[in-house]
């Protein structure tokens, strides 16, 4: 049956009268649903991107900066490293070498910087493990034992935001599922109305020896094609709406990033196919049930 939907059987399609309002209903419902699905998709892709970016920043190390008189730096670094290694939740702690620090500073001071000539603080890279460490407790302990240490964990505050972005992404996908379900429901109603309105036609077709699958196929093709076309129109309008949103910028945060990037532009193209598939399944079920009743 799938094959005939794709290839079409113009003779068979003509035996079902071109029905008026159920056609418009299907076209409109699938168009509206596809339009909404484009935005739900944009929402979940954008929040997904955001969550991934923030999460990868989270995963980056925090830094411990040790600012101390030159003769104490080495000793304080030793102590700080020891404390860090004892702190639960810290996976790894490593003092950056002079070379690495020079590389980090190169953008500001240019290459060939001689760090020995500058009072540059010693940096310690701190990697969290899954659980994370207790930042307040660590600060307390460091302030007691390593007076020159400053723990910079500015990325941590984003953790709740990552969670929020992940929930948004989930909500987006749930919306898409609900939209698909609502579309299936509406198309089922439309298909049932069309089948009821065409009870006479079905009877005549049966009298001349049509198989149920043939009759069902004619209806299913109708509705699948309409849902596909409706969803196609909805997607085009939805994408136009997304295009009209302001360009994403680096600091633009969430709202301006609500678009499709690169290959994700291909995602909305799946919506008409899914809409067609939903209509195919919904009408097929409705027709089979209806034909069984009309025996």
């Amino acid at each position, binding site marked *: 049956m799938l094959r005939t939907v794709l290839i079409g059987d113009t003779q068979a399609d003509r*035996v079902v009268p*071109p029905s008026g309002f159920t056609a418009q209903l299907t076209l409109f419902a699938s168009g509206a649903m596809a339009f909404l699905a484009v935005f739900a998709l944009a929402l979940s892709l954008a929040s997904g991107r955001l969550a991934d970016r923030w999460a990868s920043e989270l995963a980056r190390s925090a830094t411990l900066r040790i600012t101390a008189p030159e003769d104490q730096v080495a000793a304080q670094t030793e102590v700080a490293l020891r404390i860090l290694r004892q702190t639960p939740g810290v996976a790894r702690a490593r003092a950056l070498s002079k070379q690495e620090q020079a590389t980090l500073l190169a953008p500001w001071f240019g290459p060939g910087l001689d760090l020995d000539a500058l009072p540059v603080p010693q940096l310690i890279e701190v990697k969290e493990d899954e659980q994370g460490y207790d930042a307040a407790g660590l600060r307390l302990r460091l302030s007691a034992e390593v007076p020159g240490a400053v723990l910079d964990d500015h990325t941590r505050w984003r953790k709740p935001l990552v969670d929020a972005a992940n929930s948004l992404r989930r909500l987006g996908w749930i919306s898409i599922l609900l939209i698909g379900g609502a579309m299936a429901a509406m198309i089922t109603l439309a298909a049932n109305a069309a089948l009821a309105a065409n009870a006479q036609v079905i009877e005549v077709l049966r009298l*001349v020896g049509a198989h149920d699958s043939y009759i069902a196929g004619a209806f299913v093709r109708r509705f699948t094609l309409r849902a596909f076309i409706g969803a196609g129109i909805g997607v085009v309008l939805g994408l136009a709406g997304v295009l009209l949103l302001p360009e994403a910028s680096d600091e633009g945060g969430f709202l301006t990033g609500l678009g499709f990037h690169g290959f994700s532009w291909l995602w909305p193209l799946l919506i008409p196919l899914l809409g067609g598939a939903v209509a195919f399944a919904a009408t097929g079920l409705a027709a089979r049930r209806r034909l069984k009743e009309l025996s």
Partner: protein
Amino acid sequence: MIELDDVGYSYGGGELLSHVSVRLAPGSFHFLTGPSGAGKTTLLKLCYGALTPTSGVVRAFDGDLRGLDRGQTALLRRRMGVVHQDCRFLDHLPLADNIALPLIVSGRDMAQESANLKELMGWVGLTARADARPPELSGGERQRAALARAVILSPDVVLADEPTGNVDWEMSMRLLTLLVELNKMGKTVLIASHDLGLIRAAKSQVQARVLRISNRQLQLAGADL
């Protein structure tokens, strides 16, 4: 070809047919007559599997109709040409497509069948009406179209329910001639009709047996016709 063996049919409270046994031999020509409401249409429906008898057995092409599923019933319909009393058509399709409907639903290649269809439409005198919609047709045109649709798959059996129901005498004779021609081609014909004039006219053209339903029984009508 078609055989009813001690068939009874009841609905709701009433019994319409009881102990009906008849055998339609291949190539035979039968009339089914009886007063209105006697059960002629019901008997035909039993023959083509639209109704199931409440007792007894109906056999067609040596197969018991009781066990047929819907797919098999569809195949059975293709072997029997049925002219329905109310000649229903698909009103959104032109007449030519309505007559070709059995070909279409059985998946025949319409390009190959077009000569066949043209010939058949000429035979029933509807060539000029090929593009008309069924609601635009006269009663006689509908009856002829129904007959053409019934025989387009070249079935072995033609069951016609009041094929001359709402046409004048001249048209009745034309339709009868068509049915007699079909019988001469070897088809088994059963015509339900209460038009005694038609039956008399037929008897002069063909060896016809007349079955009459009266008091829920089927009888062979005598020479009084």
